[in-house]
């Protein structure tokens, strides 16, 4: 099962996903997809280092699936985190830009 690593950005508090260049992005679409236990462990360890460096808060992995090239978390809690509050479409992550580090 594929995973991505998520956290909240320390400064803004906003949801971020780890990218394959060890950066963090507000979009799950550009997150690094970790497809086996080994890469997941490696991704988590890099993320923990970022947490230790006080860039992000609350690192954990999220299960995702890719449909037609679109990355979608499998659990609805994580879908909400990825997309923003369902009651405020104007604040959805598609229209919202979080500066990638």
């Amino acid at each position: 099962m594929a995973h991505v690593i998520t956290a909240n950005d320390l400064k803004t508090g906003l949801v971020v996903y780890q990218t394959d260049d060890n950066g963090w992005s507000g979009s799950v679409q550009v997150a690094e997809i970790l497809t086996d236990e080994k890469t997941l462990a490696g991704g988590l360890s890099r993320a923990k280092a970022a947490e230790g460096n006080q860039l992000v808060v609350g690192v954990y992995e999220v299960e995702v699936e890719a449909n037609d090239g679109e990355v979608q978390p499998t659990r609805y809690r994580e879908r909400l985190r990825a997309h923003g509050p369902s009651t405020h479409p104007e604040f959805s992550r598609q229209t919202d830009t979080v500066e990638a580090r």
Partner: protein
Amino acid sequence: MYQYDEFDHSLVAERTEQFRGQVARRLAGDLTEDEFKPLRLMNGLYLQLHAYMLRVAIPYGTFSSAQLRKLAHIANKYDRGYGHFTTRQNIQFNWPKLEDVPDMLAELAEVEMHAIQTSGNCIRNVTADQFAGVIADEVDDSRTWAEIVRQWSTLHPEFTYLPRKFKFAFSASEHDRAAVRFHDIGVIVKRNVEGELGFEIMVGGGLGRTPMMAKTLRRFLPERHLLSYIEAILRVYNLIGRRDNKYKARIKILVHELGIDELSGLVEAEWERIRDSDLKLPEEEIRRIRQHFAPPVYEVLEDDTPEFAAHRFENAAFNRWVGTNVVTHKQTGYAIATISLKPVGGVPGDVTAMEMEAIADLADSFSLGELRATHEQNLVLPHVRQVDLYALWSALEDMGFATPNAGLISDIIACPGMDYCALATARSIPVAQRISQRFADLDRQLDIGELKVKISGCINACGHHHVGHIGLLGVDRKGEEFYQITLGGSAAEDATVGTIIGPAIASEAVVDAFETLIDVYLSERNEGERFLDTYRRVGLAPFKETLYPGKFHVAA
């Protein structure tokens, strides 16, 4: 209204500067999240699902137009242009940046507001009846006593690390509009047979995963002993309340495990030691605080003038709003008006900055600059001249806030749920919106009558689902949103904890199920019965049989 004195001002200013330093150290990496978290929580700052969230206290729900304008300014400058009124007379901002929070707190301090003790295991914002000071049926203005407790509890060094959070609510009426029976300590201001003022002290109420009604610890406590007695309660709780399990750490569990008599013995013993200490309230201090809540200078006016009667006669929509959202004021010729923050399909408790500014203007024009926030997530203008009600209603109508639904089916309490909250197991707000849309027809709402609908997105019950006439609890069933329905709860003077009707219902079916329950009520009800009355008379069976046909054998 209460005005800060020099101590309040310096205390809030000092705390803001302390937090500024803590934030700077966090951003510089000198504090880890584990070190910083308790510090931010003590200043009302959470890290939620999408972002940080700042919770600002509105003590006993009373605030001014100037304060509301400041909240609007903060929503615009530091957040995303809106705020959310909660079920505990607080307002939450959902998108602050960490580095901005000290400036937000400094701006709040300018208008005598803060976020101290809106989180953490301490004494939280003290709440009260939103109609305190203006409703005819009260014994006294409970805000005097709520303010005394607020001052005593603010940064109280002994009670900063309690086993768990601790909530006070005050009421001074027969009618409980503050859910006092579901607070850690509920205080009802009353008079004894000699006519002396004092308090009934109830303890151990609460919702969450273990809903319990408070029990009376003392039937009548003379007013001068308020602080010494509650200090005795807090000391006993602080010493022997459980710290081994956070789910068993609230005082309700202590009351349950010890029994009210044993707890009473411990409290009385402690009280005996401290009742004549400095905590005994001096007359002049009570008088000084009371002066802050002295009624404004009212004009001499008549009730039910021909002009007011003509507006009611000529405009059915206005007349309907008066019927649902306006309550009689203790002062002749004045009225108390509830501004519903529950327009059809709206987010309960959400107000945009622009709307806040408009409501602040209305408070200045029509309510001597004063407002109240209610635990049911509405606002109140407490001092409206009856002759001004029509102009007020017209202005609210233009803003979309004249929905005549106070106390009706669409006046729904809903916690933020999984749309915002990191603890939630399901969403609350969209269900509230769908119910409100299904029952948008005002005639139908009026026909259904008083109905308290309360929705929580998790077992922590911020949406008070246990005490809804109909309560909904969002749960996760194998990754899907389901809703467990409870019937027959009440947070009012006829307090009860509701009963779960049956298995949880899928999100797409829950509004239909809700409507089925309403249909059962309409077919079963006797003349003049509210939903709650009918439920109490006929019990769960007819509702259950209709909602789950053929699935349950219900004894006749």
